[in-house]
């Protein structure tokens, strides 16, 4: 317990706890302002710490003794009083995501959340928002399995309160229940039980380092048990990561939260599961080819299903939420691919493996940026119009130009159009999977196709919101307040920077690979020139989005300037009849109908599976619950049960 380092890493957490608690006192706007202020400050501090770790190779590590008095007399089996936090490069990478997205969404919240003023208790929002950020931060930096469980639970609870924040809406309450059932009651039971087994196996020592040596020993001595534990943990975390088939909670839950919280949920919270995947597969356990194929297959299924369902959606935030599922698929596919390729021998596969490893983290970073930007733009539309329905909205580009441009940047980023950031990470994914001469090549092809589907659905998202004529008259709609614009522009600039300057994210990823990746630093395989990431050897050589960006912009600007505009306005041509503004447009429902129909087998299968595994299951569950309830209403049954329990306790004591 050193004096100065004691508080350092926990300052943001303490600030967030303080801010949340104080803000909960105020019912009005002040509650939101206090919480947003503290969140903004602590996000900046989190960014500072993580940048320090990533760029200057510092490692922050602290052991905080919570209640020194308590431990000695009682002597619990687990040393609960010790809070061991450590920010290594992996934590720092995800903390950076948290810091940046948290900063943008907190600033955005200053103005956005006021739309709930007088309808809801803003202090309650403030409390949960700050606590949510705090527990996400603690989940990322905690270095102790036991406390990890606690913070993981608290993170889920607070996010669940935020999902059901508009408590009058039935959809919000339903989504929160579903979220609770799947994530909290379902997945966390698996995670906790697996972690408890691990704690017991490691002799009640809960620090990550000790657990790591224990799992390594277990892997050598009893591989079946080790793999069983890994399976449990993987299933548990994949519910949080919303991998298919455990994705169904996400498209319900994420849209219901306030938009800046949706940005955090999709941008950061599901990334905590990715963080745990990296910890599991590269830190606690060893990457193997079998697990690699399992992870990559699940990733491919996820990206396919998530995106194919996203293209059907006509609710702006629900569309984005389905894309969160799809993009998580890309991240997980890259992670699995890196494990497969690492396990294969040879120089070429080493390069491909490090490219895939980099791609996974790079895409996680990119996804956090563009997805939170997309949620913020959807939020801006809600802020001004109150609508999420893409069928009736439209024509907002003339009324909200800055929001439209940031939505366009984010849409092009997620579609992977060069030179935006999604392109580079997707490029890394394809160039590591397609030339691998394994099953991964087919996965890469599917990912390439799905990227086109993503682009199609974002043509729909962007044009129906911003450029197609609207189906109703939108009165008094103007650009959103300056704080909201600031967050959007901030994230938009980051999206472009990460695209045209891929060296920056690759240098951030390099310390992570030094810590985790068995082949060592990815930068030793990925040679870096200014703006151009050159992979070593002739085989994988160049990725020059900078060149692409510069040439594209140059050529288009030259052509645009050479040909001067002479603009005259005329009404839209509608075959001779006068143009009727609110009637003559195409609703979002009808977009890409032929394309969707050509994949109707997929959707019918999905419907069938949903009926079998969700609807019928719920029916049966409700039936059994009813039987149980009838049983417990009976006095005699209750008495017997109590007697039995009492008997068992007595037996145990004796």
């Amino acid at each position, binding site marked *: 317990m050193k004096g100065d380092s004691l508080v350092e890493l926990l300052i943001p957490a303490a600030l967030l706890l303080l801010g949340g608690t104080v803000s909960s006192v105020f019912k009005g706007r002040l509650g939101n302002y206090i919480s947003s202020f503290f969140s903004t400050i602590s996000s900046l501090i989190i960014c500072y710490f993580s940048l320090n770790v990533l760029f200057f190779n510092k490692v922050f590590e602290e052991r905080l003794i919570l209640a020194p008095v308590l431990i000695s007399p009682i002597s619990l089996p687990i040393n609960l009083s010790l809070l061991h936090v450590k920010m290594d490069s992996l934590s720092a990478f995800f903390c950076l995501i948290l810091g940046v997205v948290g900063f943008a969404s907190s600033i955005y919240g200053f103005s956005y959340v006021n739309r709930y003023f007088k309808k809801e208790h803003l202090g309650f929002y403030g409390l949960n928002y700050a606590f949510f950020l705090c527990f996400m931060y603690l989940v990322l930096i905690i270095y102790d399995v036991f406390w990890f469980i606690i913070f993981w639970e608290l993170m889920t609870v607070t996010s669940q309160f935020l999902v059901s924040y508009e408590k009058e809406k039935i959809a919000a309450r339903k989504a929160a229940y579903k979220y609770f059932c799947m994530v909290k009651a379902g997945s966390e039971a698996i995670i906790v039980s697996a972690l408890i087994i691990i704690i017991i196996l490691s002799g009640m020592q809960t620090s990550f380092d000790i657990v790591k040596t224990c799992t390594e020993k277990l892997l050598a001595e009893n591989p079946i048990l080790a793999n069983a534990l890994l399976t449990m943990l993987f299933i548990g975390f994949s519910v949080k990561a919303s991998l298919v088939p455990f994705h169904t909670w996400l498209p319900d839950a994420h849209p219901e939260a306030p938009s800046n919280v949706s940005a955090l949920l999709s941008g950061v919270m599901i990334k905590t599961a990715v963080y745990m995947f990296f910890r599991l597969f590269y830190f606690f356990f060893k990457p193997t080819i079998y697990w690699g194929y399992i992870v990559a297959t699940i990733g491919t299924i996820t990206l396919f299903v998530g995106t194919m369902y996203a293209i059907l959606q006509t609710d702006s935030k629900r569309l984005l939420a389905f894309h969160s599922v799809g993009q998580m698929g890309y991240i997980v596919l890259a992670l699995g691919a890196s494990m497969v390729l690492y396990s294969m021998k040879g120089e070429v596969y080493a390069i491909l493996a490090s490219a895939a490893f980099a791609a996974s983290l790079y895409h996680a970073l990119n996804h956090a940026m563009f997805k939170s930007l997309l949620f913020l733009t959807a939020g801006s539309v809600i802020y001004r119009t109150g609508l999420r329905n893409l069928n009736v909205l439209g024509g907002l580009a003339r009324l909200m130009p800055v929001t439209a441009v940031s939505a366009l940047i984010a849409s092009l980023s997620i579609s*992977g159009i060069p030179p935006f950031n999604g392109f580079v990470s997707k490029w890394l994914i394809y160039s590591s999977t397609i030339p691998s001469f394994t099953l991964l*090549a*087919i996965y890469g092809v599917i990912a*390439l196709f799905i*990227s086109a589907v993503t682009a199609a659905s974002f043509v729909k998202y962007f044009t129906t919101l911003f450029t197609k004529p609207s189906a109703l008259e939108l009165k008094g709609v103007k650009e959103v307040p300056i704080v909201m614009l600031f967050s959007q522009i901030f994230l938009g600039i980051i999206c472009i920077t990460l695209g045209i300057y891929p060296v920056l994210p690759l240098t951030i990823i390099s310390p992570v690979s030094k810590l985790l990746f068995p082949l060592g630093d990815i930068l030793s395989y990925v040679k870096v020139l200014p703006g151009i990431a050159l992979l070593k050897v002739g085989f994988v050589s160049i990725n020059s989005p900078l060149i692409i960006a510069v040439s*594209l912009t140059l050529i288009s600007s030259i052509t645009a300037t050479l040909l001067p*505009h002479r603009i005259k306005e005329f009404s839209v041509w509608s075959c001779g009849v006068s143009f009727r503004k609110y009637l003559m447009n195409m609703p979002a429902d009808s977009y890409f109908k032929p*394309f969707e129909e050509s994949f109707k087998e997929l959707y019918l299968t999905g419907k069938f599976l949903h009926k079998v595994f969700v609807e019928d299951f719920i029916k049966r569950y409700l039936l059994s619950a009813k039987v149980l309830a009838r049983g417990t209403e009976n006095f005699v049954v209750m008495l017997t049960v109590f007697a039995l329990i009492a008997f068992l306790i007595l037996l145990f004591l004796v």
Partner: protein
Amino acid sequence: MFTQLLVLTNIVGLLLIAPIIDGIERKIKARLQCRKGPPILQTWYDLLKLFRRPSIVTKEYSLPYIISPYIVFANIIFALALLPSITGVALSFYGDIIVLTYLIASSSIFIAIGSISSGSVFATIGANREISIATLSKLLIALVLASFVILKGSLMLEKLFPIIPPYTISAILAIVLFAILAYIESYKLPFDIPEAEPEIIDGILVEYSGKSLGVLKYSMYLKRVLLFTILIDLVLPRNLPPIISSLAYIASLIFVSILFVTIETYFGRLRIDQALKFMKTLIPILLVVIVIAYFHI
């Protein structure tokens, strides 16, 4: 520096040739339909006239409507720089083939966004068709690409071209399938569904006029040439002396365009769902090609 100059020669040459190729196509189409047809330079005259005209915009337009033709043009130009065409030299880097597919896809996306932004419902319908076809063809392109990569073991166009020799079944099948894809992507009858003049009055182009229309049309001609060029590069050996190689390229460009336009004359337009169904039937064939390519058959 020399490479850049040669690439520039490629681009400038194709900029000059592309409208002439279209002129040849129009002439041949007319001859096949027992008409006299316009002069071969007619497309150039049309373009020059369009560039001189002022642009008229709709009252409902928003920004992408103005800028997207130029972005489409830039995308196509950049894609041309990646391919060896008149000279056998191109900008070459690892994974350029992925960049190429993305540039083709992004040109479709920008055409769609731009035309929807005009506010016309006909343009929206056309854009929807365009995106539907472009999306499904991306799957086919990805599959063809995978079979090329398996055949040649590289993601670089430089090492990919030419696919034959060796004269394996899979290589020939892959080239034939790519030819079909190029035909679909160049929006020739029966696949000119996004533009469909009689049904949706030119669809994606309906609200464009003057310079914007000129730029869009020009980029469409260039896109056709781009697809033909990929097809030619797959077959044409590049170890000939430079002048002969250039002449061989131009001759094969004219040959491919004549071949395609002859096919085009014998078809009427398909409905969008029929076209998509046709494209779907290619998927299993491509999967088979990939498998046999893996076993070097």
